[in-house]
């Protein structure tokens, strides 16, 4: 019988513990929040899973990379207007089907190769060929792209399109080298002022300014973007000064306290994110227009916004935010009117209606759902909340299988009204053949008629009460008082860091 001696046992414990401690010395990797003002630390929730937005959906990747690491021929400014970026200028022919872009000279990619017209052609073609997201359909309108010289590109469209030039300022317009060999999931090759220096999963991504950037060098050479799994931790970090800027803050309850802190500035920027109470138009009871309208009358959106998001955000009547050119005020289309809702329900024979309400496990959705359920109860609708784990279960059940009656979700994509309501196979199931025609006509019309046409489309959707936009999500930014050049308006998915600088004081 082997006897375990004390000495041996002690030895084993000590050896194992030492091994653990030695190994532990390389554990994790750290971040360096410093007082030196050549860097800035930005805090976000919602971490990118990798760096490739051409094959991975979700806004986290373009949010970090667009404008900072990748650039397009054009960019969308803080007011939602198209501005030149890699293209110095462009001309449009008479029937608005050929765009001729003149490129900036002396632009290089971060791998050292120079940016020419061939790269533009390759990037546009690549969207059509290699991208796997349905976002690629934004490039369907392009017939061909040709390099007419090293610095000139002619893009021919199948038909005039008002939406295309705007889309070129979003992630589909990002420019890559024509002989792209990098694995984009782990490496970036862009023309932007920053490169990705370090990715520490679960912690941060560090950007470093390039010294060979073609344009004006950013004032801050090093940007660390820290990712928080918990929104309160993000708010605490900016309060404690561990981060210099909390972008897209998700804790509206804490904003009062933050606003009183003199070392901080709180900016409610606009966004393209509409919180949508989605109704399944393809299934009972919401295949009945009267029931859908009843829902819209039954909901006091002001109360929803005040209760769920502490009043931060903006009421909207359609899926068009005020920064879009075809915005119109439709907030009065369905004023809060519980009596009218009850009337409509009675008319539809839907008194004592019981529905299920699939709520994704996201703070905004859970907060909104509680208020909506109590307001619906007032008009006699018994809505039962069914939590749907987000993203996995929600995507599967609601989005893919359309197995739901009512849900609530934040739609963040810019100019997404047609994506959501233009396709009968989309999860909303809104089927209006007139809509597709009107939308197509508007896109091909002159810019003025485009605005009028899109407004008509928006009104159609609202008339049909296809779903209930509740409010426009604010892009709340809390930054150190000395930080200037904060781009708080999320007019596209991009979080533009290039203008940040520290005030001299």
């Amino acid at each position, binding site marked *: 019988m082997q006897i375990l001696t004390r000495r041996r046992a002690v030895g084993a414990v000590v050896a194992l513990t030492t091994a653990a401690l030695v190994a*532990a010395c390389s554990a994790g990797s750290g971040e360096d929040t410093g007082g030196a003002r050549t860097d800035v630390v930005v805090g976000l929730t919602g971490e990118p899973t*990798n760096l490739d937005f051409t094959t991975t959906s979700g806004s986290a990747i373009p949010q970090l990379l667009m404008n900072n690491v990748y650039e397009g021929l054009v960019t969308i400014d803080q007011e939602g207007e198209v501005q030149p970026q890699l293209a110095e200028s462009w001309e449009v022919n008479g029937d608005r089907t050929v765009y001729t872009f003149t490129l900036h000279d002396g632009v290089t990619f971060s791998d050292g190769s120079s940016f020419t017209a061939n790269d533009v052609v390759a990037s546009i073609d690549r969207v059509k060929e290699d991208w*796997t997201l349905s976002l690629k359909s934004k490039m369907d309108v392009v017939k061909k792209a040709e390099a007419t010289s090293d610095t000139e590109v002619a893009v021919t469209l199948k038909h005039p399109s008002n939406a295309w030039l705007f889309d070129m300022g979003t992630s589909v317009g990002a420019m890559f080298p024509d002989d792209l060999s990098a694995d984009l999931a782990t490496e970036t090759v862009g023309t932007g002022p920053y490169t990705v220096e370090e990715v520490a*999963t679960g912690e941060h991504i560090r950007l470093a300014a390039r010294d060979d950037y073609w344009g004006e060098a950013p004032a801050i050479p090093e940007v660390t973007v820290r990712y928080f799994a918990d929104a309160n931790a993000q708010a605490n970090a900016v309060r404690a000064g561990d981060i210099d800027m909390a972008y897209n803050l998700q804790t509206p309850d804490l904003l009062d306290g933050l606003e009183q802190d003199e070392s901080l500035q709180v900016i409610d920027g606009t966004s393209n994110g509409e919180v949508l109470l989605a109704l399944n138009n393809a299934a009972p009871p919401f295949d009945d227009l009267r029931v859908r309208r009843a829902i819209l009358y039954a909901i006091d959106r002001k109360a929803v916004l005040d209760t769920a998001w502490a009043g931060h955000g903006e009421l909207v009547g359609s899926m068009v935010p005020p920064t879009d050119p075809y915005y119109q005020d439709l907030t009065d289309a369905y004023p809060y009117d519980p009596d009218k809702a009850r009337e409509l329900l009675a008319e539809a024979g839907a008194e004592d209606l019981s529905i299920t309400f699939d709520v994704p496990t996201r703070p905004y959705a859970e907060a909104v759902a509680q208020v909506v359920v109590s307001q619906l109860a007032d008009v006699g609708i018994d809505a039962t909340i069914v939590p749907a784990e987000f993203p996995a279960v929600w995507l599967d059940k609601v989005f893919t299988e359309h197995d739901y009656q009512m849900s609530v979700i934040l739609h963040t994509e810019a100019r997404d009204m047609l994506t959501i309501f233009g396709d009968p196979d989309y999860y909303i199931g809104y089927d209006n053949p007139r809509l597709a025609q009107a939308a197509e006509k508007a896109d091909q019309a002159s810019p003025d008629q485009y605005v009028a046409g899109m407004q008509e489309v928006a009104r159609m959707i609202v008339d049909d009460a296809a779903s209930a936009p509740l409010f426009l999500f604010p892009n709340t930014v809390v930054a150190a008082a000395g930080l200037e050049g904060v781009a708080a308006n999320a007019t596209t998915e991009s979080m533009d860091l290039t203008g940040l600088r520290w005030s001299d004081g």
Partner: protein
Amino acid sequence: MARHLASHVAQLVATLLVATAAIFVLLRVLPGDPAVVALGIEASPEALAAWRAEHGTDGTLVAQYLEWVGGLLTGDLGTSYVTSQELTPLVADRVQVTGILVLLGMLIALVVAVPVGTLAAVWHRNAGGVTLSTVSQVGVAVPNFLVGVLLVALFAVRLGWLPSGGWVAPVEGFGEFWRHVLLPAVALGSVQAAIITRYVRSAVLEIMREDFLRTARAKGLTFTGALVRHGLRNAGVPIVTVVGVQIASMLIGAVVIERVFAVPGLGSLLLDSVGNRDLLAVQSIVAVLVVLVVLLNFLVDLAYTLLDPRLRRAS
């Protein structure tokens, strides 16, 4: 020792087999297609099919299981479905972060619990003991994230002495490492301290009734001397047992603290991976956890034999 080890290895293999098979099957029953989650709502059907082929999720379950277990045996956990990262270094890194946090938390807990629990037992008839006992009772009821939030509010936000969260590895700066690890370790340790205090108290109370303690006093030792030299050592066995169990539960339980303090630990990785339906990562983390827990039990067994010579012979 060799036999002891062999039995533990056999136990490890058996546990691993059962655990890996169970977790593998359970994950595949969960709703949510990993391809859809990885590529997102904008992915085309062709892209989804290509993804499934690339990651082998279109093969039979048995083939998928065997491929994964084969990789496990060679220390290759594979590549994450979602992040395209190698899992082995990622998981190893997270194990170390959580390991440091849990061990430090437990150290803090023991430093508090052993003396406080002993005093609570010795004074169990007077006001002091009752007070200590009550405080520890309350401590057990306080959730550790609340302690975390309060610590952040006081030391990071109000006083600004320590960072509100984040992580710095020891190799990157020992001072910064301590500044970052202190609050989460205290938050984690304080609740454990309360729990272990309860166990220490009852173990010592038990010992105080034993004959050998009276014998020791009869030999001329003072009460304190007898308690420290003979009593605590005997009380050690149940305490070590509960410490082992607590450490095992803290490996994942620390996730709450990791979230509050933005610490990139194992629990956070597991939670994110479940959310992303990164099945390979989830399986791998659970397998690693099983190994860690079995290893922990082995250490607890070793500690028993250290504390109680009778157990050495019994084996």
